[in-house]
């Protein structure tokens, strides 16, 4: 059983029009940028994309939005993307906005075989519309359901040939939960190492959640808000 594939095109085999895809990342941090570029090349259409953000106009998922490859976005925050806002307000793009914590927990639930759970987030708002409300300890909660995807595409710092992954700093974000929730999970990594190279005590995503792994060719890692302080 070999999970390692040599090229992104091989890794993305089987992704078809109309599928649901989860993509890790927060803003442009920790996004599977090689896979996104390949999806542009593939021209796959009518995708439902589950991702916390939608990239910016010319990077990340913004590239797929520009080419109208996305039918529906399931996200929590999309404020950085003008093309997104335009498509959404014009009705070209279906959008399901979800509280960030509920999005994270719904992905984890999907991967963990928990079909639904109660959370206080969104009670009394339009997020709660049509959802069951129940009071626990005097506080109203809404019932949220699990999210899964045909493919989950995540980006890790290092990965081994067994599919074990480790992430760096805040580039971890949604990647571990999405890795759990994909029927097929694809990991693009900066460093691909032999099994046994990673300390088994410090694996963020155990290989059981990963079906395919490849070393990304280029990581541009664009920064959205470069904030610095002057040296004294």
């Amino acid at each position, binding site marked *: 059983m070999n999970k390692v594939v040599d090229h992104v095109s091989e890794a993305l085999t089987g992704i078809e029009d109309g599928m649901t895809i989860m993509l890790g990342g927060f803003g442009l941090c920790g996004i599977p940028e090689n896979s996104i570029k390949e999806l542009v090349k593939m021209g796959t259409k009518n995708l439902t994309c589950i991702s916390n953000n939608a990239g910016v106009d010319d990077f990340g998922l913004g590239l797929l939005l520009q080419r109208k490859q996305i039918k529906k976005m399931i996200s929590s925050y999309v404020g950085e993307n003008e093309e997104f806002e335009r498509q959404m307000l014009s009705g070209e793009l279906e959008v399901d906005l979800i509280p960030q*914590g509920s999005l994270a927990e719904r992905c984890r639930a999907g991967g963990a075989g928990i079909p639904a759970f109660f959370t206080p987030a969104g009670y009394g708002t339009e997020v709660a519309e049509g959802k069951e409300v129940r009071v626990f300890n005097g506080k109203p909660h809404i019932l949220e359901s699990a999210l899964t995807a045909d493919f989950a595409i995540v980006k890790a710092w290092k990965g081994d040939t067994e599919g074990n992954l480790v992430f760096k700093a805040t580039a971890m974000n949604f990647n571990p939960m999405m890795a759990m929730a994909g029927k097929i999970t694809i990991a693009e990594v900066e460093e691909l190492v032999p099994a046994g190279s990673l300390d088994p005590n410090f694996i963020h995503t155990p290989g059981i959640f990963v079906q395919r792994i490849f070393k990304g060719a280029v990581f541009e890692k*664009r920064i959205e808000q470069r904030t610095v302080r002057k040296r004294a």
Partner: protein
Amino acid sequence: MALDKIGIAKRIAQELQDGWYVNLGIGIPTLVANYVPEGMTVEFQSENGVLGMGPFPFEGEEDADLINAGKQTITVNPGAAFFDSATSFAMIRGQHVQLTVLGAMEVSQHGDIANWKIPGKMVKGMGGAMDLVASAENIIVAMMHSNKAGESKILPACTLPLTGVGCVKKVVTELAVLEIKNGAFHLIERAPGVPVEEIIAKTAGNLVVPEFVPEMVL
């Protein structure tokens, strides 16, 4: 005189307590981190997966893999920890974060808050705000008293789509500190030199004004 953004941040920093874990939203709230009272240890959590945020990096030391929830490059202090988004919101939803400070477009006298959407005009999404306001015991809103059109943001009821209901405990604006309880804003403090009348005039919601309203000490 009305406070500037730094003044608002300084006033909110007075609410901090030693040992607290605090989540700061984008904008004015972020500035609060610069004014932690001397001798006090406060850890800052950012919902994208970091505890123990430090100052911005020196020029040239930015790391694209290390950002805060506002997508700004940051650093971390010794003893920091990184974690995934589910764990991050476990901290928030599980009330392990003692204080949340965030901005708002509107706040109602019942503690409702709206800050994520203007129907037909602007939809940025709620991000982590709905989880934060639904979960935190202690929520302070940092914002301007009025919007750009000069209309009060301190209202009897929110007009915009809600982010959360009955959750805001305190509002700090350029003019005043308001506590929300029993369906009313209670005027606790006023900005140095700001007359009570101005605050009354600029507050659309039910405002309870005590006989003596102390000035903030910044």
